[in-house]
């Protein structure tokens, strides 16, 4: 008998043409798709009962010059087979002026996640109602979670440059 993941994979592959799906670890389904099909894939999954968006994450593959967005879905279900499934929907976008459509219409709780990624990776989510700063106070030239942002260097350049008050007084 096929398990829940296999069935879902087949269903997905029937409905969408340009995606790759792979079942690993029995409870894990990884779906790779293009950035403009993400929202349809997500709403398809939402309608299939995987209605909990656990996380939107982003990985900066600087060598390939892409940002990989990872949407992790699980199910609010008391059925064990379904509740165990973790679905990772991945899509890749360019690092320069990255942008894609928001998924708030499908998952309401995506709002802060997208806001966070906007702030920390500089990804622009089209249609997002408020892409205002979330966590940060200072402004950074490179969004700080990108791989080319070197925090240790930044600390040296900013925080370590501030003199102690005693030293300053002695200087004057």
């Amino acid at each position, binding site marked *: 008998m096929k398990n829940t993941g296999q069935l879902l994979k087949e269903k997905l592959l029937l409905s969408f043409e340009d995606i790759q799906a792979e079942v690993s670890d029995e409870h894990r389904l990884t779906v790779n798709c293009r950035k403009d099909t993400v929202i349809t894939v997500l709403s398809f999954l939402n309608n299939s009962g995987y209605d909990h968006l656990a996380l939107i994450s982003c990985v900066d593959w600087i060598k390939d010059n892409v940002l990989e967005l990872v949407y992790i879905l699980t199910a609010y279900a008391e059925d064990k087979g379904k509740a165990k499934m973790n679905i990772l929907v991945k899509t890749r976008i360019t690092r320069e002026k990255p942008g894609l459509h928001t998924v708030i219409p499908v998952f309401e709780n995506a709002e802060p996640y997208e806001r966070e990624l906007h702030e920390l990776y500089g990804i622009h989510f089209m249609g997002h109602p408020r892409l205002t700063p979330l966590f940060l*106070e200072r402004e950074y030239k490179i969004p700080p979670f990108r791989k080319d942002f070197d925090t*240790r260097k930044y600390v040296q350049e900013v925080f370590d440059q501030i003199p102690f008050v005693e030293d300053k007084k002695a200087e004057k």
Partner: protein
Amino acid sequence: MDRNNLGKWLKSPGKMGQKYSLHALYFCTGCGIIEIPPSITTRWDAERFGVIPVATPRQANLFLITGYVSVKTLRYIIRSYEQMPEPKFTVGFGSCPINGGMYWDSYNTIKHLDKYIPVDGWIAGCMPRPEAVFVAVTHLWTLIDKGMADGYNKYRANYQYYRENQEKILGKLEWPPLFSKNIKHEEYRTIA
């Protein structure tokens, strides 16, 4: 503990009052705050020494910087500190405000708190146990007794430098300077 020493109370009521009525500003600046509730509640009961948390900086004279300070928090710390009436005392909690601690390479936490506001005492630990908080309080008593807990005087005397440092990190501050000019340390001592 010389709380029941009437002679001392008559001689310097101000100092004694400061010592035994330390009202701590309740501000969860960092993770060190987790040890504050145990120290003010049943198990350790800091109220035995007159240490209680208060709601607003105006009522407080003790500022516990409990742990790491992010840039965003720093702004509020400075504000709160400036609102506190003098004399006021600051105690830095744990490793992080001393030299960055765990977050020594974080882009969003400041590494040395004493660059931005004066600190009268530091407690080692990550985090400091409630016992250490108590010992810190007794230590602070000694400092107050000897007149060494004078961070607020230092702040007055070097306000210009402190403000410069603050603005370097936070950009232009939206509130006007607390003191219009630097009052010399010694001068202020005689006034106070």
